[in-house]
């Protein structure tokens, strides 16, 4: 309650003069994307910063695309005063890939405050990326004040209801879900009845050998419910995907890469192109982490995914911006 609290170092565990808040501020620099390669129906996601270490063979598959997330355009706090710059750095990395990805996914929090100029800036920066198609799902920062009206006008013209949709690329079925609307007090991300019904119907007629890639902003697995890092009704959504041999779930929101395999489902979260957040429970709150400027790009990322048709594997690998 003290007025000074904000500026005090409260938990200086490492005696380095950086408290949680300070660290969060630094980490906010972090964020790039992931290069995703589908190989034999299995998706691999590589942090874009690691792509330079990969062999061409590793990067080749039936299908490759890039996941970027959490650009937070408009954010200007110490954690990253130049989120446009780090997004541009992510685009440069994407453009530097030896095999151009087919398209990009943006898993939400495009803007920081849902302001038109923030969306405009991101659109402008992404125009310089080699992959021309970008598929979006909203983050909670993209649907502020207007229940997502602006987001849908800009990015959701062909989507259903609150912005969900699906499409097919080279035999892979992609499903974009929205779990940031109508959030209830004390709760987590929510898909809602209408969307779940649509999903059940959308995948019903697909062969069980069809590789499925689901992308949504808030993780569809329980990363850390105490911080709201999970989705209330994701179990129902995953139940509809049980029959498929290869299911990959790509999320953002938590500004760090995390991977998990559960049966037929592989979960990945991508780093932010804007700023990092603390590991689950490792800070008092999930606020932006400030990291030293020279480290920032190593904690920001893009995810690049590559899919190889015919066999059945999908792999996702995350890379950092450094």
């Amino acid at each position, binding site marked *: *309650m003290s007025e000074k*609290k*904000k500026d005090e170092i409260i938990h200086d565990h490492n005696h380095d003069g950086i408290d949680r*808040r300070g660290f*969060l*501020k630094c980490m*906010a620099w972090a964020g790039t994307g992931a290069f995703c390669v589908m190989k034999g129906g299995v998706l691999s996601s590589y942090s874009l910063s690691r792509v330079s270490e990969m062999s061409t063979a590793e990067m080749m598959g039936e299908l490759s695309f890039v996941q970027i997330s959490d650009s937070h355009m408009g954010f200007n*706090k*110490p*954690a990253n005063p130049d989120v446009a710059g780090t997004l541009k750095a992510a685009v440069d990395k994407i453009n530097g890939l030896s095999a151009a990805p087919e398209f990009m996914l943006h898993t939400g929090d495009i803007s*920081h*405050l*849902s302001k038109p100029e923030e969306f405009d800036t991101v659109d402008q920066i992404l125009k310089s990326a080699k992959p021309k198609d970008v598929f979006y799902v909203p983050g*909670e*920062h993209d649907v*502020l*004040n207007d229940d997502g009206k602006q987001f849908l006008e800009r990015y959701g013209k062909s989507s259903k209801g609150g912005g969900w949709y699906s499409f097919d690329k080279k035999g892979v079925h992609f499903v974009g879900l929205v779990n940031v609307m109508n*959030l*209830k*007090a*004390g*709760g*987590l991300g929510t898909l809602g009845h209408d969307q779940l019904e649509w999903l059940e119907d959308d995948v019903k007629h697909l062969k069980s050998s069809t590789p499925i890639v689901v992308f949504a902003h808030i993780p569809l697995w329980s990363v850390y419910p*105490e*911080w*709201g890092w999970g989705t209330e009704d994701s179990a129902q959504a995953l139940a509809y995907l049980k029959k498929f041999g290869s299911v990959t779930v790509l999320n953002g929101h938590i500004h760090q890469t995390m991977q998990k395999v559960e049966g037929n489902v592989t979960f990945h979260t991508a780093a932010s192109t804007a700023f990092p957040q603390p590991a689950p429970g490792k800070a*008092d*709150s*999930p*606020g*932006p982490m400030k990291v030293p400027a020279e480290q920032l790009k190593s904690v920001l990322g893009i995810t690049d995914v590559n899919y190889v048709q015919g066999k059945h594997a999908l792999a996702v690998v995350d890379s950092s911006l450094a």
Partner: protein
Amino acid sequence: MRRSVSIAGLGVALVLGMLCFGTSQKSHMASAQEKMSTMEVKIDNFSFGPVTLTVPVGTTVTWTNRDDIPHTVVSTDEPKTFKSKVLDTDEKFSFTFSKAGTYPYFCSIHPKMTGKVIVQ
């Protein structure tokens, strides 16, 4: 209603009292009166502080976002008794509670953040 009328009456009495008692007394009284009518809730580290705030009827509560991340202040009832716009860092939202009752609220962006105002 009756209570707010009597508070208003008390206010008049205080003002009259202040006019009678000189300047030092006056500023003391004024600050006491101010304390009764406005209360602060700070939003810090993804939480409301205090989480539960008890205030007399007629109090104006002001929330201030001290986080680097935007938050909102939205009552959980339907239709909403109060609903702030998105508050960026250091932005404020105020609401005056004119009726007794318990008012749970949350941040609609980070719904794990909840709080309560008890108006007596």
